[in-house]
C-alpha cells in the first residue's frame, strides 16, 4: 500500500513510530513525522494499519495497491 503523511496535522505524538518503525520516523528538530518509505509491503501492513488507528491527529493516509483508499 502507498503511505502518505500530513505534517501540518501531525502533533508529534510518535504513535506511528512505535507502531511501524520501519515506515515512520520523527524529525529530531521539530518532532513531526517523516516517512522512511512511501510504500508498505505486506510484512508491515498490519503495523501501518495500527499506526493509522493510533495516530491522534488523523495525519496518516493509506491507499491500497489497486489505488482506492
Amino acid at each position, binding site marked *: 500500500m502507498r503511505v502518505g503523511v500530513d505534517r501540518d496535522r501531525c*502533533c508529534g505524538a*510518535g504513535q506511528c513510530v512505535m507502531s511501524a518503525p520501519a515506515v515512520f520516523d520523527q*524529525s529530531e528538530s*521539530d*518532532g*513531526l513525522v517523516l516517512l522512511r518509505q512511501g510504500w508498505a509491503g505486506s510484512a508491515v501492513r498490519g503495523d501501518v494499519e495500527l499506526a493509522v*488507528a493510533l495516530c*491522534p*491527529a*488523523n495525519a496518516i493516509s493509506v491507499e491500497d495497491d489497486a489505488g482506492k483508499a
Partner: protein
Amino acid sequence: MTGTHTDESTVTLPAARGACPFAPPPAYGEARRRSPVSPMSLWDGTAVWLVTGHQQMRTVLLDKRFSADARVPGFPFLSPGRKQLLTKATPSFLRLDDPEHSRLRRMLTGDFIVKRAEAQRPQIQRIVDEVLDRMTGHGSPADLVRDFALQVPSRVICLLLGVPYADHQFFESQTSALVDLSTPPEEIKAAMAELTGYLTRLAERKRREPDDSLLGRLVARGELDEAECAAMGMVLLVAGHETTANMIALGTLALLRHPEQMARLRAEPSLMKGAVEELMRYLSVVHFGLPRAALEDVEIDGTLIRAGEGVLCMLSEANRDEALFQDPERLDITRDARRHLAFGFGVHQCIGQPLARAEMQIALETLLRRLPGLRLAVPYEELEYRTDKAVYGVRELPVTW
C-alpha cells in the same frame, strides 16, 4: 449558559466508586450502556455531556469544533478551585486551541520524540536505581508512593527542565496542592504564583547561562516571553509528575493483587511493554474526564450538542468499551491494549507519552527484579485512594520486601 438536564438518568460528577478500587464509578459504565453520549451535571448543577464510547470519544477529541480553551462559554469546570486555576490570564497550550496550541506545542515536540525517550533510558534507569537504593537503605516497610513513585518522575522532569535538585521538595509540595480538588482557591492561587515565579527566575537564569536542558533550549529559541516560558514549565511539571507517579504506584498495587500475572512478568520481562499499556487501559488514572466546550452545534452519534455546551470525555469508559476490549473488567497483561485512550486523543494527546512509557517500564521492571519479595505491609482493605484528586491513585502504599 446552559441549563440543567431534566432527564432523570442524569449522572452527577464525580460519581462514587464501587467496591473495586481499580474500576471506575459504576454510574459511568451504566451511562455508557445506556448511550455513549449521555447527560450529566456538575457540582454547581451545570449540564454537560458525558462521552463514554471509544469511537465517539475519538470523534469528539479529533473535532476542532470542540475547544479545550477554558475561557470558552460552556467549558466544564470540575470544582471552584479548578475554575480559578484554569481561567488565569496566561493558559498553557493544554488549554489553548490551534493555531496557538500547535505553535507552542511544536516548540517541544522535538524534545519528546520516541528516539529521545529511548536514548534517555540509561539516565532514567540510573534515577530509578538511586531512588530504590535510598528506599531500601531506610529498611522496610516503606511507602512506595512517597519513597519511590513520586520521586522518579519528579527527578526525571527536573532533569529534563534543568531544575536544580535542591528545589525538588518545593516542587512536590506545590504541585500536589495544585492537583488537589479540596485545595481552596486562594491556596491554589498562591501555589501557582510560587511556581510561576520560580520558573520565571529559572528561565531568566538560563537566558544568562544557557544550558542544554529543555528549558534552556526553549529560552534560547527567543520566541517566548517570560510568562509563556513559565507556563511551559508549569504544564510539564503538573502534567508529568503525578500522572506517572500514580501509574507506577497503582500499577504496582494492581500487579500485587494479580500475583500470577506479576510472576509471569517477572519471568518474562519482554512482556513489560504490553503490560504497561494494559495497566494504562485498566487503571485510566486521569479519571475526571477530559473537558471540552462546543464552539458550534455538533451532532455526535445522533446526539445534538449545542454551541456553548460542555462535554467530558471519560477515558476510563472508552478503555472499557466492549466494542474494542473483550472482558474489559479483567486485567490481562498479555492482551493487545494499544488502542486505549489513557493518553487522550486528538492534537492534545499526551506529548510526554514516550517518556512516561519509558519511566513506567523501567520503574516496574526494576521493582520486580530487585525486590522479589515485594508485598503489602498492611491489609489491602486498609488502603485509601485518591478519589478526590484529578489524578487517581493510592494515597499511601506501605510495602515490605
